[in-house]
């Protein structure tokens, strides 16, 4: 049985139009997936809907055998799905350490939080060095590591990472990709990834979903999907229409 099954969801913001019209995906355990598609395809919206930040207007989301569609974000997190959004949502005036403690908010038990904190400081030595520093004083790449480490505090089964390399220098993005590889490899976390650097994203992933205009167009093995002629149509053929559609999903 799949770890996560998204069945025909439809979703949008406020009273606005549907951003996702009909998306179905199956996610197997211990696999890395990359979600690709042009701007405005609904990639971020898909993640937000799974995370419980948006209620699906239709369809179902089943995780580990139980439906989580429409649950509050803290309940979704409690079930084992964490979300790392693209805008590096740190707590600017808390220290790095306090940010990580916040990641363990649902653990309740102080000792569990401390144990996990120590484990993660080993995976992210830079955060151990910066523990007492205010999060807002760190560089973009370090902040990205912080939000990823913070998400790992609750030992999630599934981690959704939205554009981790956005605005980072190439060297720093390589470091971030190495960490993601480590998460899926050594720690066995199932990963759903959105990456604007499609080539890099597909190198990391085992499988890819291709989204356009709010629905899944096709899917396939990550190492073969770039050769698919439909990809070229999607990214190049749509250029003309994309300029008008680009801002339907502002990416935030």
């Amino acid at each position, binding site marked *: 049985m799949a770890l996560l099954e998204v069945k025909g969801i439809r979703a949008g913001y406020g009273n606005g139009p549907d951003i996702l019209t009909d998306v179905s995906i199956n996610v197997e355990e211990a696999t890395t997936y990359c979600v690709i598609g042009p701007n405005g395809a609904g990639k971020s919206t898909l993640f937000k809907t799974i995370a419980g930040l948006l209620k699906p207007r239709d369809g179902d989301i089943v995780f580990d055998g139980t439906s989580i569609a429409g649950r509050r*974000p803290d309940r979704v*997190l*409690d079930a084992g799905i964490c979300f790392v959004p693209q805008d590096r949502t740190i*707590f600017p*005036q808390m220290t790095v350490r306090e940010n990580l403690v916040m990641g363990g908010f649902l653990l309740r038990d102080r000792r569990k939080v401390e144990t996990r904190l120590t484990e993660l400081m080993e995976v992210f030595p830079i955060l151990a060095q910066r523990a007492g520093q205010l999060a807002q004083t760190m560089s973009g790449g370090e902040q990205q590591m912080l939000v990823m480490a*913070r*998400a790992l505090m609750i030992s999630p089964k599934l981690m959704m990472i939205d554009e981790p390399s956005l605005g980072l220098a190439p060297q720093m993005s390589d470091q971030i990709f190495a960490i993601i590889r480590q998460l899926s490899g050594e720690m066995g976390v199932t990963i759903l990834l959105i990456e604007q650097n499609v080539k890099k994203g597909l190198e990391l992933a085992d499988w890819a979903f291709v989204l356009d205009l709010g629905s899944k167009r096709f899917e396939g093995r990550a190492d073969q999907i770039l050769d698919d002629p439909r990809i070229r149509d999607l990214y190049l053929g749509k250029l003309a229409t994309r300029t008008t559609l680009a801002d339907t999903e502002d990416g935030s």
Partner: protein
Amino acid sequence: MTLTAALQITILGLLLGGVYALMASGLTLLFGVMRVVNLAHAAFIVLGAFFGFYMWDGLGIDPLVSTVLALPVFFVFGVILYRLLFPRIEGSPRFTEMTVLMTFGLAFMAEGLMSYFFTGIFRSANPPYARDAVILGDIFIPTGQLYSATASAVLLIGLWVFLKFTRIGYGVRATMQNRDAAQIVGVDVRRVSTISFGIGMALAGAAGSLVSFLFPFFPSRHWQWIAILLSLIVLGGMGSLKGAVIGALGLAVMAAFVSDVIGPVWAPITFFGALFVVLLVRPQGLFGKKVRA
């Protein structure tokens, strides 16, 4: 002005500023957590003052004791009021605008009900220490102000400890700093909002009990107070507790000097003058964060 006179004025200003800081703390906390400017905050301070007054006048309970009693009473009142009023407008894209209108209406309603039940005449609790003073050399310190400032300091430190060291306090601070991130790490932001509204109300009630013996009050007094409190928290940076405390102390001292040198009628001008300058020079306030457009 002699040095002694200056010291005297500074001390009086600081004592008054401490109470202003407590009065403003609930307002800035609520803004920080929910982006709600609670225009009814000072009306609830007046309600707290009536609470302190009647406890003293009717039951003989010291207003300082009422300050402590007001905390749970007003907290529960705040939670009930929140549940009654806010769920309807939550999630609305115009949430902040709507809350301004709603709390404005709430202020009128509270004032009307208080005028109806408690009448509009001047009230003031008069425990014995309200007319006493401590004299240190040439410095004269009214005992009532000393007690109320001390009580304010204790409550503000208590609030800081709560925010800094408890799990719910972490949740409140996280929500203030980044609401999205708080949701992502599993903070139930609606629950945090409810609790914060309750805490804001508890602080208003406690501040009111202290005010009951500091200033004469009557139901419509709150308009004057809310104006001063808003200028304090804008000066300090809306949503910043540290800013509210420093803004309150600083402005109260300045107002005390203005009052002494130019005349008491001009004291309120200090607050609005400072507000004017801050909005020109540093619109996010002394300790506020710049808001990205």
